[in-house]
């Protein structure tokens, strides 16, 4: 099995602790998202639920290679695993989805539109590609403050976001400024329902890296070990002063666009292809084959994370939701005496 050979070959040059961290974040994320899906289907979540199913290896490999408290990570819609790996507590997720006033968004924004900007994690807006320049600005600020050494800023987008002007402007600006930025493109074959042949005409999105003058890396996004190696290396290159790095990960979205969407437009032939592999399943095999984790450990992690998820959901469900009477209804931090 090629999987086995790959696993044995890379086990030598991979950091065991890093891979374990990535895998644990993947598992934690999947179990959390399964629960979110159930809550949505039970009518317990208002608004959309957007999952990163099938993209956990990519997202977590990025999140776990960043340094909490120093680096910057701007997650997008399918980055629960990356958020978890970057250190976002599960309770931030459940509070935001369930509208707890104690969460970071306090019911003012929901689901995946959450962040802690002062902890290096901006809150995404729905307009795709818009975070690339925000991360660029955070890095430029660090440079102006003389605090850029050893810092990396990273963000994720999908194949659809690469078609936006914001993505182009942001990545071009980062390249001009030679910022230590990593942009991970999760090419999951569909932007909502639109296949890649209606999204771009170049042979491979990776070709664009040369056009922007940034480093380019390609990876099988369903392969845990490959993701840790390639994405970990891209982060390392950015950190060492080699300018922006773009990683294009090939995979398939293993859910609908959101849980309201059954994704029936995804052809079965794609689901049965290499792209359609579930990175959690291949990851379990790889973890065991490399000896990075035992079957018993993985089972224990699953139990522990299931308990954590249950606790985070239960806690958020008991917490107060926003009260329109207590809401201050102010969009400005400046006091304007009620005048608008």
């Amino acid at each position: 099995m090629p999987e086995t050979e790959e696993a044995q070959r890379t086990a030598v040059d991979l950091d065991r602790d890093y891979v374990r961290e990535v895998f644990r974040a993947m598992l934690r994320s999947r179990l959390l998202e399964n629960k979110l899906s159930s809550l949505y289907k039970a009518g317990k979540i208002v608004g959309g639920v957007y999952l990163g199913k099938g993209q956990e290896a990519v997202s977590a490999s990025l999140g776990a290679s960043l340094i909490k408290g120093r680096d910057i990570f701007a997650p997008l819609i399918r980055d629960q695993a990356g958020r978890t790996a970057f250190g976002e507590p599960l309770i931030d997720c459940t509070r935001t989805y369930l509208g707890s006033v104690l969460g970071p968004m306090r019911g003012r924004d929901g689901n995946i539109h959450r962040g802690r900007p002062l902890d290096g994690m901006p809150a995404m807006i729905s307009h795709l590609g818009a975070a690339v320049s925000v991360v660029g600005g955070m890095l430029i600020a660090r440079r102006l403050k003389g605090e850029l050494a050893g810092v990396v800023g990273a963000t994720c987008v999908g194949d659809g976001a690469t078609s936006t002007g914001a993505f182009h402007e942001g990545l071009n600006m980062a390249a001009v400024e030679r910022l230590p930025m990593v942009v991970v493109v999760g090419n999951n074959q569909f932007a909502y329902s639109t296949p890649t042949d209606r999204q771009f005409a170049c042979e491979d999105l990776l070709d664009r890296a040369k056009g922007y003058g940034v480093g380019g890396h390609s990876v099988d996004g369903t392969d845990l070990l490959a993701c840790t190696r390639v994405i970990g290396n891209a982060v390392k290159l950015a950190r060492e002063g080699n300018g922006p790095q773009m990683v294009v990960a090939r995979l398939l979205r293993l859910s609908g666009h959101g849980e309201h969407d059954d994704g029936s437009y995804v052809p079965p032939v794609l689901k049965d292809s290499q792209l359609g592999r579930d990175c959690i399943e291949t990851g379990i095999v790889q973890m065991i084959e490399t000896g990075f984790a035992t079957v018993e450990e993985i089972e224990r992690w699953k139990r522990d994370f299931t308990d954590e998820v249950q606790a985070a959901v239960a806690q958020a469900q008991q917490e107060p939701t926003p009260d329109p009477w207590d809401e201050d209804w102010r969009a400005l931090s400046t006091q304007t005496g009620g005048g608008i």
Partner: protein
Amino acid sequence: MSVTYVDAIREAQEKLLREDPRVFLYGQDISKFGGAFKATKGLAEEFPGRVLDSPISEDAMIGMAVGAAIEGMRPIIEMQFADFSSIAFNQIVNQAATHFYRTGVPVPLTVRLPSGGTPGSGPFHSQSMEALYAHYPGLIVVTPATVSDAYHMLLDAVALDDPVVYCEHKFLYRWLKAPRINGDQLPIGKARITRPGKHATVVAYSAMVHEAVRAADRLKEQGGWEIEVVDLRSVKPLDIDTVLASVARTGRLLALGEAFPWGGVTAEVVSRVCADGFHLLDAPPRRLNSRDTPVPYHPKLWAAHRPTPETICIALRELLSF
């Protein structure tokens, strides 16, 4: 010696760069070239590494500013022309304007918009965008009309913790001069009575304040009318109290603006006066704006597209004769 409006903008930025290490400037051609209007002339040399040329990427310029503001900086972004901020519209109204409400983290950034018409500039270098930005919660929108306001309001804008859209009028850049920068230093959010009067109130902002004063001078000469001119200074927040107090004195209102006629600042002023000061009015309030076409290129067409002292006088005579 005198100071022009654009000198005041340059000097405010120089003072900010000198006194506040959090301030930096980002925009097209603003570094060694000194900007399309020379509002940053010499600043790149004086403050190395803090006056940065951007690519032609208005969206990324504002996204960058939001990121830098999160990190504690005070970026000033120069749009080369207000018209091009349409490319940055998403980052301004969705990223910057929503940030504090959503996350509780303010994003102190200032976007300078060289606004308004000048002869020969045509449809894409003449627009007044203030109403679009004022529509969105989470932004402060200022429109200085005097040399001293251009200076002090830019300092104030950068001091605020929120995103500020600073609309500077290109027609005033070199035409408007003052012996020195002084001024009453009214805060942002306070309007000013530019010229006291008792027969009618003209509420204006930016370059139209000067056209209103010209019209008021003519009506004084021609009929002894005393027209009060109120300079809004900031269109958001809008100082409706000063406007209502003026209308209480005069009983008549003309809302004057250079922007397009559908909606906008003049409609907002009239609507608020009608709602809160209907009993103060002796005549139906009037609005005067540009014509409802793109801003034309030819100086003859341009001069007839925007309100002029002549058209303002006509509107005022109709208002006074009701």
